[in-house]
């Protein structure tokens, strides 16, 4: 770090933002070089909560390692678990009952809404409006409650298992999802009143943190960050898994490339998720919620890669198997890691207040980045 001072010009200020800072969601540590209010360089220092989940997973069986992935991107733990389960199923070559597939997709979309709602509140808080954060939690709380009823946990679900889902749906599930849908639809207008149409908010977001389509691809961005730059990258559309191929889903694209575009993309994505839920909730096929699998799972020697679309983007699981009870090597391709790497590109030359807005618009979850 000492040599960095030598590289700076007179009048530059090096400031640490994070790990213990009120605006970094989690414990992101950014070392930024400032000139007055202008950001000259942003350098993320990662690893503050690195737990080496990849190394841990090497000593866990194929049933066990899934629980750890809930703790990576804790806001889309369902979808992370889904990706892992898909990867193991790929190796086992089991057929998943349709009921389980529908339940998985439903849970995934509910998780996406819950995650985006939290992001919405957190972004508003980053740019200084604190009230929306509490309003966001009202909706998120409903979702957590109804997921808790079926899965038994509110955050780290561990509900998806190789072969299906751990339990069948709770009898109240459908009714409560309907309640949520009608409630959410009545509240989404308030979101626009409080934040989306607010002139101060629009001014804080428009033209801030621009990233072009080419750069977004080169930086490996995915999810809403890439789609806001016009990169079509929705795994649910491009490489449909489970029953995503059969539902009506529109990929939300925007070519703004700035924070406001990312905001709009996520807001529209919530509507899309809602429409997927509405399509499926009354058509859950009856049947088993889980395929028969062996007590001890062994993946044949080889390599398996599966990817799913989490709330933050493309989550990939790469398993190298030696045919043993535990994987030889697991690599998690986390969306936040690549998205974060673009932050220097986005924030250079902007104000320090913009940097906070950019961080919010990237929707970073630090355990997902540090793993």
């Amino acid at each position, binding site marked *: 770090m000492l040599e960095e001072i030598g590289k700076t010009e007179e009048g530059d200020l090096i400031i640490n933002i994070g790990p213990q800072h009120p605006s970094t969601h989690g414990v992101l540590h950014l070392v930024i070089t400032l000139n007055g209010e202008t950001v000259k360089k942003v350098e993320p220092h990662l*690893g503050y909560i690195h737990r080496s989940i*990849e190394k841990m997973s090497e000593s866990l069986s194929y049933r066990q390692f899934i629980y750890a992935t809930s703790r990576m991107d804790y806001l889309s733990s369902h979808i992370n678990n889904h990706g892992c389960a898909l990867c193991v199923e790929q190796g086992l070559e089991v057929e998943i009952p349709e009921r389980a597939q529908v339940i998985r997709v439903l849970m995934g979309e509910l998780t996406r809404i819950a995650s985006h709602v939290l992001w919405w509140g957190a972004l508003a808080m980053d740019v200084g409006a604190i009230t929306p954060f509490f309003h966001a939690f009202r909706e998120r709380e409903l979702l957590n409650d109804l997921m808790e009823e079926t899965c038994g946990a509110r955050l780290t679900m561990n509900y998806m298992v190789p072969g299906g889902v751990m339990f069948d749906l709770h009898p109240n599930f459908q009714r409560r999802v309907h309640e949520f849908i009608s409630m959410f639809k009545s509240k989404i207008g308030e979101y626009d009143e409080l934040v989306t149409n607010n002139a101060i908010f629009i001014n804080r977001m428009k033209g801030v943190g621009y990233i072009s389509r080419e750069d977004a*691809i080169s930086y*490996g961005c995915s999810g809403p960050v890439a789609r806001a730059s016009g990169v079509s990258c929705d795994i649910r559309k491009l490489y449909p898994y489970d029953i995503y191929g059969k539902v009506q889903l529109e990929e939300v694209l925007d070519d703004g490339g700035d924070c406001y575009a990312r905001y709009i993309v996520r807001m529209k994505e919530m509507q899309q998720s809602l429409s997927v839920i509405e399509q499926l909730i009354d058509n859950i096929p009856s049947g088993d919620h889980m395929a028969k699998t062996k007590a001890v799972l062994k993946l044949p020697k080889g390599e398996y890669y599966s990817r799913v679309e989490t709330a933050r983007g493309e989550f990939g699981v790469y398993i190298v198997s030696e045919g043993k009870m535990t994987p030889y090597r697991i*690599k998690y391709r986390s969306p936040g*890691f690549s998205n974060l790497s673009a932050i220097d590109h986005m924030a250079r030359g902007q104000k320090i207040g913009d940097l906070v807005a950019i961080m919010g618009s990237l929707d970073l979850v630090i355990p997902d980045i540090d793993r």
Partner: protein
Amino acid sequence: MTSEALKTAITALLPEAAFEDGREWLNVRIEAKDWKAFAERLRYQPGLDFDYLFCLTCVDWPAHMDMVYHLTSTVHRHTVVVKAKLEREDPAIDTVCDIWRTAEFHEREVYDLFGVRFNDHPDLRRLLLTDDWKGWPLRKDYEDPVNMIKL
């Protein structure tokens, strides 16, 4: 492009490339020294346009190491997996972070956890661990009596 067409295109690019049967995607095994030039071709040659490096990692085998690059094209939607074998003693390979910017972080992570040196990387430092950390944690022979809990 289909897997077969990719195979012919890649053979034309790099005759030494060997193919492994991937389950889903075409797996190409190359020599580490060929990687940089090959990567540039993959990225910029019309018809291939592998512009999206969505996964970069390393696998530590008992006798050697494999760098694994998952590449896809947002134009043609075809995917290829490139693998390069490295020595376990002092592994090194050319960086590709000037071709795919995302590689800068991913290569730092691999350096951090596996100790693979990336030639010409602009900023090859530890990313996750502290700067004074000893050893490469994701290698199979890594032992850390302090931080690892044996269950």
